[in-house]
């Protein structure tokens, strides 16, 4: 994920300081890896250096020094360019999941590859249930639902692949070792 662009997007609504940005990030992207404060400040530093944001004054009410930042015109243009770029739809099949199965077939027998697939399927199924429970909880916000939907759709696709591949393991192994 492009953290600099996400921060630019969060600043599009107006000036915010680092702490507010971190909170807004975790709220808008509820199932993303939470952003560390250090990462927020380091990213803001780079964005400032590149002229994409500027400091818009300091707030100091008995607490720590808090600098608010605003988007510059160049920052807004960079954000718009990023949003306009279509993401390449899966340019490489580069998942660790896939690589492990391929490697397992090389170094292990059919049963070994199959037991890896079955263990992975179990972990995926458990996670799918957790996310389904989280999104159907009456307290779930739409932010939660949309984030869980994204993960569920991908887990569902992985699970279909795991099922199909379990059925293909024996043939695949024969082909690899022929």
């Amino acid at each position, binding site marked *: 994920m492009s953290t600099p662009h996400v921060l630019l997007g969060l600043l599009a609504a107006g000036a915010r300081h680092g702490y507010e940005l971190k909170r807004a990030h975790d709220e808008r992207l509820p199932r993303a890896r939470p952003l560390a404060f250090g990462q927020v400040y380091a990213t803001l530093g780079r964005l400032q250096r590149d002229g994409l944001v500027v400091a818009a004054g300091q707030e100091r009410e008995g607490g720590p020094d808090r600098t608010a930042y605003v988007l510059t015109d160049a920052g807004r243009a960079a954000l718009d360019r990023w949003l306009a770029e279509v993401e390449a739809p899966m340019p490489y099949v580069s998942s660790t999941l896939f690589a492990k199965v391929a490697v397992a077939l090389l170094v292990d027998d059919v049963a070994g590859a199959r037991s890896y*697939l079955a263990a992975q399927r179990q972990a*995926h199924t458990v996670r799918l249930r957790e996310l389904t429970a989280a999104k159907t909880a009456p307290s779930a916000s739409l932010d939660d639902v949309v984030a869980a939907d994204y993960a569920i759709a991908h887990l569902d696709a992985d699970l*279909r692949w795991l099922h199909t591949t379990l059925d293909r393991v024996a043939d695949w192994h024969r082909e690899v070792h022929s």
Partner: protein
Amino acid sequence: MTYLQARGVVRSYGPTPALRGVNLDVAEGEIVAVTGPSGCGKSTLLHCLAGILRPDAGEVLWRGERIDTWSEAARSRLRRSTFGVLFQFGQLVAELTAAENVALPLLLAGTGRREARTAALGWLDRLGVADLADTRPGEMSGGQQQRCATARALVTEPRVLFADEPTGALDTLTGEQVLTRLVRLVREQGTSIVLVTHEPRIAAYADREVVLRDGVVDHDGLGLDVPLAGGHR
């Protein structure tokens, strides 16, 4: 408490075996997903458990009592009073309004017309389609029809709901809305569900997943740790 049990259930269609000795327990209030590839026997199992089909061998028990030996009339009464059934589509009577469709199982069970209509309206409301009470199925979307069918399946407050690909004909969002309401309502009532689906996403709504393969239980439970596939173990 165990509600439903299949013990060694065998069922064939002519020379083709569909179930080859299935064992399954469903507890009170439990939602069990029955999954597996096409032709694995999951719908046949649902029909046997619901008393719609009779097994060729083995037993089906409801609260410890064998029902597979009951007459068709007795099983039909059990289905009307205690079980609910929900299929993929095409269950509503085209000539009747939504409220009349939902009231139908109650009328068949001898409930008075006024009382049946009140109950039907209540269930349509719980499914979020109260405004369709006087609409006929032909004028509804697929999702609206399925909500009405769900209301009809629940109006008798069944102890077990048998649902065969209940969201199979719906788009993802509509299917999810129907399923979320269904699960919430049966949890309130303590009703069990036997949910047949081939979609992992749908099975994730259940408490437990039972995978059938080639007419036998391939694995049962959350800990799907039994290596399977292609009939090899």
